[in-house]
Structures are given as C-alpha cells and as structure tokens.
C-alpha cells in the first residue's frame, strides 16, 4: 500500500511524562480566572513570563466572555422575546468567546508549547476548573 504519511507522522508521539493542573483562582468570586502562579514543574520547560502571559490572556478572554454588557442584555431580551428559539439559530456571546479561547489555545500550543514538549488542554473540557498542562517526555535528553 502506498505510504502516504510522512515519516514525521509515523513517528510516535512523545510519551507523557507528567501533568500539571493550573487551578482556578477564586479570590474574586466565581468569575472564571485561573491562577497565574508558575508551577515548578514547568520551570525547566518554559519561561515563566511566557506561561503567565498565556494564563493572563486566558483570564482576560474568560472575563470578557462573562462580562455583563450590552451584548448580554440584547441577547437576553432577544431570547425572551423569541421564546428562546433564538438559541437554536444564533451563537451566544459566551460561545463565541469560547471558540476564540479554543483558537487561542490551539495557537499557543502550536507555536509555543508543542515545541517545548508541553500541551495545554482547553479548560472547558475540564469544566473550567483547571488548565491541564501535559508535559511530554524529552527523549532527546535521554539519548
């Protein structure tokens, strides 16, 4: 059978060495914020600033998603008026922000974290409770 995969694809993914969980920061209530404290396990893998920048950006995105602004008012009224059938057609503001966040995380993974053997998991998959950072084994060091 013709091999259509590149050799790169055929190589197995690096093994997972550890997982770090960035917990939620509840100091401001139940607003979705994550702790920006740099976990010690990542010290050898990524810059502190880089990581904190990522988390801060995520926090900002979530804060914007949960913001009680005109967007949310209009959406609410519209929903009421249409007996919530608008939810069948339209995406809510929060959902739009979640997509943006997913894209941001994907981009961060591709550009920054994957080359360093790390992988960020979208916290929505964990119920917005934690950001899971998977640390991959650096086989190059063991060679």
């Amino acid at each position: 059978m013709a091999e259509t995969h590149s050799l790169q694809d055929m190589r197995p993914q690096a093994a997972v060495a550890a997982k770090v969980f960035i917990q939620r920061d509840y100091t401001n209530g139940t607003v979705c914020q994550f702790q920006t404290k740099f976990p010690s396990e990542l010290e050898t893998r990524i810059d502190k600033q880089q990581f904190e920048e990522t988390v801060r950006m995520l926090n900002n995105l979530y804060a914007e998603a949960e913001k009680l602004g005109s967007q949310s008012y209009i959406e609410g009224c519209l929903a009421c008026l249409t007996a919530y059938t608008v939810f069948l057609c339209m995406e809510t503001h929060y959902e739009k922000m979640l997509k943006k966040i997913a894209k941001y995380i994907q981009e961060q993974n591709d550009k920054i974290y994957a080359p360093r053997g790390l992988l960020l998991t979208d916290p929505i998959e964990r119920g917005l409770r934690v950001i899971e950072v998977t640390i991959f084994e650096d086989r190059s060091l063991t060679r």
Partner: protein
Amino acid sequence: MPNSAGKRFKPTKYIPVSTAATLLVGSTTLFFVFTCPWLTKVISPAVPLYNGLVFLFVLANFSMATFMDPGVYPRADEDEDKDDDFRAPLYKNVEIKGIQVRMKWCATCHFYRPPRCSHCSVCDNCVEDFDHHCPWVNNCIGRRNYRYFFLFLLSLSVHMVGVFSFGLIFVLHHRERLGALHTTVTLVVMCIAGLFFIPVMGLTGFHLVLVARGRTTNEQVTGKFRGGVNPFTKGCCGNVEYVLCSPLAPRYMLDPRKKPHVKIQPPFIRPDLSDRQITIKVSDNGIHGTIISSKSKSSLDDLDDKETQPPLPPKADRYNQLKNQMTSSEESSLSGKTHPSTPAMYKYRPSFGTMPKVHYHTAGEKIVMPDDRKTSAILEEGVRGHDYRSEPNLDLPEYANAPLHRTFQSSPLQLDSDPINSRSLSLKQGHRRPEKGQLSALQPQTVTSTPYKSVFSPNTLSNRNGSLSYDSLLNPSISPSTANECMAHRGMPSMGFHSPYLPTKMCHIREPEIQRQQVASTYSPVMPPRSVGRQSPHPRDRDPSPVRYDNLSQTIMASIQERKEMEEREKRQMLHGRSQTHIYAQDSGVFDGAYGGSRDNLMGVGLVSYGQRTPVLRHAGSTLGRAPRTSSTSLHTDHSPEGPYRSPAHQPHSPAMPRSPSYSHQKLSYISAHERTDSPRLGGPREAMKVNGQMDCHPSAQGATLSPSRHNNVKKVTGVGGTTYEISV
C-alpha cells in the same frame, strides 16, 4: 416501560414533572378553549393574546428549566485526581474576597467542588452554582438554568394569577348557569390555579429574596451564610442583574469534539537550558546542592544589559533558596526566583571551581597559558560563574564532592552567547574595555585581549560542569575556537592546569597535584571542604568561592575583561615567542590595570594578578609577591553579607613562578601605572599592589597584616554585593 440493561429506568421520578406538565398545559388549554372565547367577546381580544403570550413564556421557561444542562461538571480525569484521591484532605479552603470558603472533595466526581458547587444525588452530578433539584422539572437548577427557572416561577405566577382572574370574571358572569360546561371547566381551572397558587407564589417570593440576596437555595437552606457575610453577593441590583442579564453559561458536558492534532516530538526547546547544561558549583559554607537555573534565554539576554545591576536583595533570598534546595537537582527554585540578574552572572562567570589545569587537560582543550590563567585568576575573584567552556572537562562528580559547593546548572547558552559580553561585563568601562586597544596601550607587548575573550566567553563561560571556582577562573578553558588560537600561540598545550600565576614549570609540577586534588575533591580551591575560610592548604588551594550571582556580575565582568586582556596579551606573547614570564608579567599587569579601573571587587582580580606576578617576584627573590597579595587581600575584604561565601582565593599560583625579575619588574611598573590610573577605589591595597609591582615594600607591610594566619597566597577579593572571595595566589 422498557428497562434498559445499563440504565435503570425509574418512572417514579417522572411523575412530578409529568404531573406538572400535564396540569400546566391542560389547564391552560381548557382555559383557552372554554373561557377565552367569551372573554374575547365580552372584554377584548387582547385577553387571549395576553394570556397566550404569558403562557408561551411559561412554557418556554419551563422547557428551558427542564431540558437545559444546569452546569454539570464532567467527571475529573484520573490524572487529575491522582494526587488528590489518596492524600487529600476532605476540605480545602480558599479565600474569596477575604472570606474563607470551604471546598469539599467530591468522591464521585473526583475533584474539589468549586465554591457554590454541590453534588446532586438525584442526578449524580456535581452542578455549578447548585440551587436545588426541582422535581417538577426533573432537573437540577444550577448556574445555567437558574434564570429560566426563576423566570418560569415568575411567569407561572403571573399566568396563574391571570387565569384565575379571568376565570373568576367568567364565573361571576355565569353564576346562574354554574352547571354549564364552560362554567364547570372554568371552575375546575380556577380550582387548580387556586390550589397551586400558594405554593407557587411562595416559591416565587422565596426565590425573589434569594436573587436579591445573591444566594442559592442550597446556601439558604443549609444556613451557610447565617450570620455571616456572603462573598458572592454583588449587591441587590447587581445580583438581580446577574441573574437576569448574565450571558448564558457554557456547557461543560460536551460531546468529545475532534481536537486538532498537535504534533509533539522531541527534541524540545528548553527555555534557558539547552542540551548543554552547565553546572556551576558555588562554594558555600557547607551547603551543597545542584541548582539548575532555568532562565529563559531572553531573560539572559536581557541580563546582558543589566548585568551591572543585579538586584541585591533578591539575591540574598536566592542564596537562601539555594541552600534550601540543595538537593533539588531537577528544578531549580532558583530559576523561578532568581531572576534576570542571575543569567548575567552565569554569563560572566567563569568557572571557579575546578582546577583549570585539570579541566583543560581532560577536555583536551587548550591549556590555558599562564597568561590566561592570570586572567582567569583575576577574573575569578570577582566572577563566579560557570566556566562553560573553559572547563569542558569539569567533572561534575568532582565538583560534587566539594562539600562547600553548590552546583548550579545554568545554560551554557548564556555564557556562550556572549563572548563579547565578558567585555561588556567589565565594569571598568574605561579601562577594562578594551582589551586590545588598551592593552596595547598599556603594554605594548601585552597580548591582545583575545586570550581574555577566550577565557571568558567561550571558555570560561561554557563550563559544562559549571563549577564556579577560582580555579576555573584561573585557568579558564579556552573555547575551542580560541583554543585553537591559543594552541597556536601557546607553547604548552600539553600542560595540564596552568595557573596563570604559575610558570610553566609550576604548571607541570602542579599538574599531578591538581589531578590529585581534583580526584580528591573538586577543584582544589573549590572542592575541599573549605570552610569559608581562606586557608588554602596548598598553594593551589582555593577556597570555594561562594557563588553569589549577583555579586559576581561586576566582578565577573571585570575579571572577564581581565582575562581577555590577558589572553590577548598572552597570545601576542606567544607569537613573539616571549617567555612565559613575560606573559605572566604582562598579564598581571594587564590585570592590574583592569582591576584598577574596576570596582573594588575587581581588586581581587588585581590581587590575582599580583598573585600571578608573585612567582615572578618570587623568582626575583622578593617577597613582595606575597606581600602585595596579602595586602591586597586585606583590601578586598569586603564584608560580604554572605559571610560564608568566601570566594576561594586563587591559590593556584604558587609563589614560585619563575619569572625573570627584571621582566616582571618592567611589567609591574606598567601594571602599577595602569593600576594607579584605574583604580582609585583600590586605595590602599591598590597602592600596595602597585607598589608591589614596582617592587616596593609597601605591600609587604600590608601583606603581613593580612596573612599571618593564612597562606600568604590568599587574597581576599570582594565581589559584587560584598561577597568576599579569597584567592590564593
């Protein structure tokens, strides 16, 4: 009712919701069919319209409350609860707006329930902002659907009131024919409405209060905030606004969506540690440890610029941390805390710890010519850094033996990246600078600054084993590039450790000694469990240099500069086929000059240079060599806050350097001149040194004061931040 194998079908739980739905829809339908036509005729068509709308609203909210995910948390992955499951306490406290809130461990869902979250036993799920489980909608009321539940209650109340009122009007107008169908039906509807009026209104009122106060039913019923402060309240208006106008919260129980595949393959980029990890041994007062500094390269680069101002206070903390983390080999607490200034130190820190000679040898690198050593020696005074390349063969184990040493691993990148940095590091902006130009100015026959450079940047810095020791400083390994260069120039590639201060002969002599030393413990100055002290048992012995990165920057710079200069000079010398003594002399001169200009901590370097000169002097038979050293040592005794961190004096240069007195004399004069111009700071010691250079007896006097109890080769050099290093010359 079919019973599926996996899931138990409990019909009973659907009874309330079915009942509620039936009653609602049925009653309203009856109302519309039997009561509304008359009302339309008699009162207005707006009546059914109004009722219709309200009913629609009720239905919509009822549906949303019933079918909407209330905010169920998915079960935690195994990986997440690995730590928590066995050792975790039942409760975890978190502070929210100043109030301690307890988070309970959920055994079913395997995570600590976020604040306001509760586990619903009916649904068997943890629900966010759990309010209650409503049997009438057969659903939990949580964050996502509380608004619809609340609106349902409100609209149902309104609807009930409307239906009851209009029914009453109908009945009152049809009093005489109560037995008629329409009237009967209307009466029934009114009864139903009346019957449920009290509970529904009661519930509505209750929730109105809850919304106003910003509490959930669960919190109210369990009395969480009884007599206390609710950290989740936003004020009455804020709470109402939050309930009614906040955006629809997201669903957590999503279908597993296809995630974009992210390829993760080693090798991975490391922030500041690349494959080359440099271990720097910092001699401390008995604390050892391996610290891997993980500084980002960028931060390191930044440090280049900031090298001159490493913040002192944090450094102290860092040292403490170092102490505490001696054993942490993998993660450096330092890296987290040490910050940008540290990389500068790394950068400029030639390795101190190992016997330069040894390293050079094993590494197969170029042996540092005496000049180089001088430079390194000088440098090491102020510089504590890892000699990245200078000691490629730094054997970690050897270093590890040094009880007083802490091993730091820092990215060699830092050091390597800047060969020129060493120059820039030089504090002596004026004089240190430049190597070639100044050196030539100072000493026509001096070598170029290349040796310096080679000592520092590639070599000194890239100490694989990274031991910070004066030894490495003394004998900075030459980087491969420079090494080649040096090779060409130096005549003694085969030499082992060549202390800058020692003549070739001495080097040979010392070699076995060094080897021995190295084997026994790490670098002689560094390895032996030297207490802070300065005593060096052997001439070569150097006390472990307490590596305080922040202290090193200036000193390091200076020493790097010196070293470069020395190397250059040396190279030139070699080219000219000068005798070693010349080189030594020159180097020392250069160093002195360099040191002169630098800060006080550079004095150590100067001292080192003196040390270098010592052999010459001694050779000349004068005791000045020693004297100046000692004197200068005393001068450099800075009180370093870290008392224990005494830099090991370079002791490699055994006094007996065979140098031609005349030559050295000549050189010394240069040196002294240079020094004089350079270092006003040096002050007394300086002068002593200068004097020494000129074969004066001043230093001896001073030296005497200093070294009675010590090895007279020991010089104290003050590093940046007050760290005092002892250099044995």
